[in-house]
């Protein structure tokens, strides 16, 4: 899972569409290679692309499991992969059981966490995207927002939890509120950057055609900013999924974070490892879904 965590780290703050020249250069390189092969009859033999593409990640995962087995073999309390696999088979045989509020299947726990992330993130999008638009459009507001964002962005979202508990007097809304706070900044910042990055050419088109404000927004601003917004969404959800686990450890209730803490109290280490994999896989699926969404809205 270390590899996955690393990948999250390197997501750029903003992604610009690939330069058209890059595509042209790639095509040219292919053409040159084809001509070379045709004229010399020489052809590099290589394993098929798909095989290599499959082999590398499989090798990486195998290495991870091997290291884990090695560490487990040294003794201590870390269970080995086979024990964990058996425990996982049992847990995932019935993920949606419910025996009272403190004993529910892992499926319910994951769904509850996703629900909190969804609500908190959704509210952050409703507030952050419009705010990002006005901050990107008006320099004065950007100047006003800059110190606030600079001051509050580096604060760990969990530091907001006591305020949430104080205001809402309940654990669940406090956790949602923490997700709201941590999702807010990437949405605002990326949307604002997107608005500022709109090429002057597009705005000149709007000016020479004298387009109405509504047309400018729907036909130029919004589509131009959309890829940046989706980057903001990806970053926000990534952070939210990191934070929800910690928040739930503190607030309790039903949720994957609380489940981890509960299993720690029960000293069921194999369940904690299962939870780590589950959190990783759910995060990966959400991330990939958003990457697909981003691809749908990128303009080559």
């Amino acid at each position: 899972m270390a590899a996955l965590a690393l990948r999250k780290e390197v997501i750029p703050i903003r992604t610009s569409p690939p330069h058209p020249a890059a595509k042209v250069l790639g095509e040219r390189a292919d053409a040159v290679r084809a001509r070379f092969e045709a004229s010399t009859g020489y052809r590099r033999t290589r394993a098929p692309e798909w095989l290599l593409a499959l082999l590398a990640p499989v090798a990486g995962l195998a290495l991870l499991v091997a290291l884990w087995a090695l560490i487990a073999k040294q003794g201590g309390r870390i269970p080995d992969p086979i024990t964990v696999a058996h425990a996982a088979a049992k847990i995932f045989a019935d993920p949606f059981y419910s025996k009272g509020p403190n004993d529910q299947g892992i499926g319910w726990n994951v769904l509850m966490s996703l629900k909190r992330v969804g609500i908190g993130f959704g509210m952050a999008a409703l507030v952050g995207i419009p705010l990002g638009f006005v901050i990107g459009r008006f320099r004065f507001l950007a100047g006003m927002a800059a110190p606030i964002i600079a001051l509050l962005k580096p604060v760990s979202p969990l530091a907001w939890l006591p305020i949430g508990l104080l205001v809402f007097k309940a654990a669940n809304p406090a956790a949602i509120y923490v997700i709201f706070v941590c999702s807010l900044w990437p949405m605002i910042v990326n949307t604002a950057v997107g608005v500022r990055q709109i090429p002057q050419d597009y705005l000149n088109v709007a000016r020479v055609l004298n387009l109405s404000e509504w047309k400018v927004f729907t036909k130029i601003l919004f589509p131009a900013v959309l890829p940046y917004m989706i980057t903001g969404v990806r970053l926000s959800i990534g952070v939210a999924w990191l934070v929800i686990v910690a928040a739930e450890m503190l607030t309790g209730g039903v949720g994957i974070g609380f489940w981890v803490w509960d299993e720690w109290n029960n000293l069921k280490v194999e369940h904690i490892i299962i939870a780590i994999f589950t959190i990783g896989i759910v995060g990966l699926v959400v991330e990939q879904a958003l990457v697909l969404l981003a691809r749908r809205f990128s303009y080559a």
Partner: protein
Amino acid sequence: MHKYLSIESVGKTFETKKGDFVALTGIELAIRKGEFVTLIGHSGCGKSTLLNLVAGLLKPTEGTILLADKHIDGPGPDRGVVFQNHSLLPWLTCFENVYLAVERVFAKDRKERTHAVLELVGLSHAEHKYPHEISGGMKQRVGIARALAIEPKVLLLDEPFGALDALTRATLQDELMRIVEKTGATVLMVTHDVDEAVLLSDRVVMMTNGPAATIGDVLDVQLPRPRARLALAHDARFMDLRAAVLEFLYAKQTSGTDHVFPAARRAALVQ
């Protein structure tokens, strides 16, 4: 001569951190209805600035610009602008890019008008393609279609073929001549290509080097239309006109490197 587009004592000064920069000064130019005029000069001579003043994207610091006796104050759909880098919106198809302009100006027959103008530039087959799916030349055709679609009083072209390869450029020049003939459009075009200027224009306006650039000379191109590229290549009048523009650009105006290589220093080096 009736002045259709009239540029009167126009000057443009930009405020920069290093003080005022006089880009243009004392520009006087009158263009008849249906006339094709090109602006030619070395890079940095302010020819694009002049075009942007007519487009209304910039405001003159001195003088006025009148189009059909109306004062130009900001951009408007009575002028169609074709940008050098086509400036098509990548998330709209060719049709939608043109339609955006059409619906701004016309209330009726919007689709028919869009189809018609795309047919005029020979792009009916690519209407539903996105800009990244078509070639540079085709993109520029869409740009021209978008500018023509609003039936502007004057068509403003800012080095429209500058980014194209020579063969595509030649094809598009021929296309532009055909379109202008068919529509009777009044055209003001910026170029730095001498052949292009002489081939297309009724008059070539030659600009002096900046800063404080102005009109150095105006050349009447009295070649009969329609003009055929191949026939003109050996035409003595065409050659003379071409030579006259080259003479102006390379003998009377130094080659635009004065700011890197001051004339005084260059003179010293030559000695």
